[in-house]
């Protein structure tokens, strides 16, 4: 039973990763691409947390006495994801700032029309 449950998490994580990549590859609108990046980030984070999951575990916090340390889930992926979320929001903020400036300069966010540079 717990096997199926963990399977659901993986399906969710990879669904998000694939949908995010699809948005980035297919869409031409810059804001849409940035939304794709945010979905991709969420998927990667969900995947990382799923790696450390222990089906019958508890959260890694000694909030009261007598919690069995053997049943705690792995804290390392959680620390990594905390870092990854903050890095994700940093990239998104910068990307949106660039998008705003790009719109001021070109009057469009369609990447097909933004072609100042040749090869």
């Amino acid at each position, binding site marked *: 039973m*717990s*096997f199926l449950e*963990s399977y659901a998490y*993986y399906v969710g994580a*990879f669904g998000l990763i*694939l949908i995010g*990549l*699809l948005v980035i*590859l*297919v869409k031409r609108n810059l804001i849409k691409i940035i939304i794709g990046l945010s979905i991709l980030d969420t998927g990667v984070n969900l995947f990382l947390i*799923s*790696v*450390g*999951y*222990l*089906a019958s575990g508890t*959260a*890694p*916090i*000694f*909030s009261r006495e007598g919690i069995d*340390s*053997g049943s*705690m889930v*792995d*804290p*390392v*992926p*959680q*620390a*990594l994801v*905390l*870092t990854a*979320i*903050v*890095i994700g*929001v*940093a*990239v998104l*903020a*910068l990307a*949106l*700032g*660039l998008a*705003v*400036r790009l719109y*001021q300069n070109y009057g469009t966010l369609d990447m097909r029309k933004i072609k100042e540079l040749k090869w």
Partner: protein
Amino acid sequence: MRIFLSLVVLAVIAVGIGKTLMEIPFGEDTTNVGGYYIQSGRDDTGAANIVTSVVVGYRAFDTLGEVTVLFVAAVGLGAVLAVGSASGRRRDVEPASLVLYTGCRFLFPLILLFGAYIFIHGHLTPGGGFQGGAIVASAFLLVYLGCRGRRIRHGWSKATESLGGLVFVGLGLLGLTAAGHFFLSNYLPKGTVNHLFSAGIIPIIYVAIGFKVGAELAGVIDDLVEESE
């Protein structure tokens, strides 16, 4: 054609990762490092929240880098939006309705208090500097909704950012001279687990991070709003 190609690429990635995942045992306790952290995290760092002891204790260097990433993004956003932009003047906006205004004034201090609670208790309960900082920043978001003329004083937010970062690096460098001679080692007394004043330098660092992240995210919102109105 483009969509077809993208789908092919995605299929390759999906199959590859799927095959590797079969190798990773799921839901079993196979971790090496994580197990050690759970066993001795409380004694090594004095924090009840093991995630905090990993984030600010064992892997504090990562966190220093993470704080820097946010700093880079805030500074970079400011640089991108500042250079050669059409006048940074704000258009006159319609003032918010009385209900919104009163509600924001009422909620603003409460949200600040909640954010501060979250980052002060980072070593005891879930949460910490980043979550608390984000909550503090959301209080400033509320200010933009409710009191549209108000601005953050840029000097203050910049100074907060700087001081937060300097406290972090300074505490780490003190570790090189204090007992142990290691960067970011926890040289302050660790106290009793589950007490507010415990875990040595961890709460100090988390409070510094909380202020820094709050000021930075509020600054990011401020930069974008200034441009966009």
